[in-house]
């Protein structure tokens, strides 16, 4: 095991009996019809999960998957084929299927020499992963969470808690001869609480994790915080009044509400949509798309974060990309294909869900840099508005720019004071417009606790978001109260 951690590339060669010569021949065959580029993506993933309900850990599961994906690119065309049998024969068949995309009439194999190692970051060199922690110990933590959440309030009726951990070993070998490999640990704790009283029932949830060791959950008693947050949210929502409907001033709390940036800005700046001219942000680099208080970055290099990677899924080291600088649109998120076609540099944002998928431009950790106001000043400045601190999911229509994100914990602001909790409501806005309405940015930037999963074109990848407290002067709140 220790050896794999040091040399993940050697893992595949020995585990599946591959040689560098075989990889060279497969890549050469993939390029045979005058393609521009080919790569092989190897993946070996092991995962374990356990969950609690009714105060017992009654479900455990594990899974093992492996496979190889072969990609061939010719101009703007992509051929992709994969197999869950990692053998030379299967890879050759996949290469033949993938190269059908290139219609040059080439006959001869192209010489490829594999061997150049790509440097990578060292963002999550763990002593051990939660997978190595005895199951009994992981189960005990879920039982403790159950106890803490139930003790919080007698109206807590049920507690569901789960812990999932995985380890992915990946290797990318491309037709330029580069080999990049990585071991990617990831884990996540999740707590959901249902509370009920004579008026009704409500749910609350909290969770977190990242590319971290087991001890992460005990620093600052994070696990207890999640149990208490879920319980408190469910209890708070029991007293929630109907949310208002219409356009109003909204203050977003720090951390996970950064999902705003992910939906409103991030997707629209992914290279594929901009190359095709199908994004509401297409052709707008250098233009003002936000107020001067807003600087937004995507950074895949933050140690131990859920959205971070040493290398992306094309073998490019991840980086920090400035998307918006003081309100001006500066950059796109690129994978290799779109970077090449747009004559830009890859930014380390080529990601995929697994070997069964071709990579595309995706976000890593997307957040806004802090400003100068305190949260108290921002809330105190609002006469009438909504203060939203926790969210469920969001979604965006990249072409027309309309995005939504749904508050799961929110309060009214009345005369500068946070008053009554309101029921969950969806907020809707227009990506290129919403940040121009940001009038105050807090000094309290926080990243989310490690819970984000982003879906695009049927592929899910882990991501992070972050935000300081911000004030938005006008966004539509989808409540039921006129």
């Amino acid at each position, binding site marked *: 095991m220790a050896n794999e951690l040091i040399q993940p590339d050697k893992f595949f060669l020995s585990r599946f009996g591959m040689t560098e010569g075989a990889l060279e021949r497969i890549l050469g065959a993939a390029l045979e019809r005058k393609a521009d580029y080919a790569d092989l993506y190897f993946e070996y993933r092991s995962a374990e999960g356990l969950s609690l309900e009714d105060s017992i850990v009654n479900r455990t599961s594990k899974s093992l998957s492996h496979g190889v994906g072969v990609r061939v690119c010719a101009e703007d065309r992509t051929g992709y084929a994969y197999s869950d049998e990692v053998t030379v024969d299967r890879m050759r068949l996949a290469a033949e299927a993938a190269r059908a*995309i290139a219609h040059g009439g080439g006959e001869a194999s192209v010489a490829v020499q594999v061997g150049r190692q790509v440097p990578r970051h060292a963002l999550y060199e763990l002593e051990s992963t939660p997978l190595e922690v005895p199951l009994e110990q992981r189960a005990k933590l879920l039982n403790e969470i159950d106890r803490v959440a139930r003790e919080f309030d007698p109206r807590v009726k049920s507690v569901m808690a789960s812990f999932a951990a995985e380890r992915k070993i990946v290797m990318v070998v491309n037709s330029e001869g580069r080999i990049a490999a990585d071991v990617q640990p990831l884990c996540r704790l999740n707590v959901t609480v249902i509370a009920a009283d004579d008026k009704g029932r409500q749910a609350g949830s909290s969770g977190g994790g990242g590319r971290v060791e087991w001890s992460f959950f005990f620093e600052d008693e994070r696990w207890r915080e999640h149990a208490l947050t879920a319980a408190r949210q469910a209890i708070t929502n029991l007293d929630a009044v109907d949310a208002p409907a219409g356009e109003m001033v909204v203050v977003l709390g720090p951390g996970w509400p950064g999902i705003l940036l992910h939906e409103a800005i991030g997707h629209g700046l992914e290279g594929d949509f901009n190359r095709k001219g199908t994004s509401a942000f297409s052709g707008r680099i250098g233009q003002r798309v936000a107020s001067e208080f807003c600087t937004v970055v995507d950074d895949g290099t933050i140690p131990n974060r859920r959205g971070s990677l040493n290398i992306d899924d094309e073998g490019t080291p991840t980086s920090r990309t400035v998307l918006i600088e003081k309100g001006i649109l500066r950059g796109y998120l690129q994978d290799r294909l779109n970077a090449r076609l747009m004559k830009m540099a890859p930014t380390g944002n080529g990601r995929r869900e697994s070997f*069964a998928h071709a990579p595309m431009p995706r976000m890593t950790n997307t957040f806004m840099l802090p400003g100068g106001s305190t949260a108290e000043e921002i809330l105190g400045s609002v006469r009438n508005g909504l203060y939203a601190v926790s969210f469920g999911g969001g979604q965006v229509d990249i072409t027309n720019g309309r995005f939504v994100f749904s508050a799961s914990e929110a309060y009214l602001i009345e005369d500068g004071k946070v008053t009554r909790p309101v029921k969950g409501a*969806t907020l*809707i806005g227009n990506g290129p417009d919403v940040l121009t309405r940001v009038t105050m940015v807090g000094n309290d930037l926080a990243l989310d606790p490690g819970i984000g999963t982003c879906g695009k074109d049927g592929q899910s990848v882990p991501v992070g978001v972050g935000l300081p407290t911000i004030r938005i002067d006008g966004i539509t709140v*989808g409540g039921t109260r006129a």
Partner: protein
Amino acid sequence: MASVEAGEAGVDLAQWGLEQARAAGAGAAEVLIVSAESLSAGVRMGEVEKLKSSRERRLGVRVFVGQSSATAATAEFERKALGEFIADTVRLARLTAPDQWSGLPDPALHPRHLPELELSDPSSGIIEADRALEIARTAERAALGADRRIKNSEGAEFDSGRYRVVFANSQGFAGEYAGTTYSLAVAPIAEEDGAMQPGHWYTQNRRFDGLEEAASVGLTAAKRALRKLGARKIKTTRAPIVFDPEMAASLLRALAGAASGPSLYRGASFLAGRLGSEIASSGVTIIDDGTIRGGLGSKPFDGEGLPITRKSVVEGGVLKTYLLDCYSARRLGLAPTGNAARAVGEAPSVSPANLYLQPDRYSPAEIIRSVKHGLYLTELIGFGVNSVTGDYSRGASGMWIEDGELAYPVQEITIAGNLKEMFMSIEMIGNDLVWRSSTAAPTLKIAEMMIAGE
């Protein structure tokens, strides 16, 4: 190809897996093997954009030691490694807390004969790349040629695939089935005065010849993009909402989620304790039918080897049954309904098979005509449905109705209400039920909801 047709990953392998589990000390076990292959072909702006060929096979087990259980999935089919993997899963079960409700179904409930449901196209198989590309190209060409304002495209994609499911348990049930799916989707973009609007349309069927014609899919997609040009925001108001069939189907999915066993026994559903009571207006009948021949959600047995059935979930507005697997049925003191769904390596979950709302007599035009001022809803975005409370708040777009006519497109608004009240206030039901996925509904009119805009 071998993955789907060969006997190598069939019932014999499943029986062998059950034997391994028994040898490792499991008192009961299940094995599920899913193999699938597909080819997907995409064009954009008339040119080939992507070809993707897939081939996958996974084996899942659930093992019981007393009332303790564990599940596992693997891509490893080499016998020695697989045997060790199953033995490891039995060890995992021993570390899991016993659960009094867990276990295989009552063996008397397993079907003796499996129905023939015509899940596979007998003649077409996987459609080869050149033909698939041509179909996608035809659809996109029709979209691009529909109007000069269709200036760009996210492309068109044609997919064909086949799969095979093998399931066996240690109390003697074993079954298998195979199916095919074909689909075509087109996504043109309309542009006017510097603003872009995407359109999207699709067709999907188990038979290749059951697909809607490619050019007509493209034209519909273009029309859907074009009618959104010039969309505006409207003032916040309360008004009736006409859900088009696709949007109406999304309401059914939300209801099915709340009617499913796991949400109910956890007290996480607004339908808890509502069995036998009125939950929708009296014209509403919702049926779940897994026995429809060629249905996209049909299968001969459910994820625990129980017969698939046809049943009214809601009849004349009254909630008649929940959707249950064995575990949630035992928890609720009810009989399982054959709605266990199964992903390889996971415990059963619950899902409807083919779920639909029974059509009534009104044409969509009649329904729209009945509205003085209101919204014809054609798109929803976001996840603002709370199945614990029924609270509903989602991003919306569509056409504004003035005096019974579609007047202009609207966007950047939300619609909000509560599913309990929304189902109770379904005022008119259309006659236009068309199956495009495993959930279908005709056009529906809801008396009034809050629309938030400016």
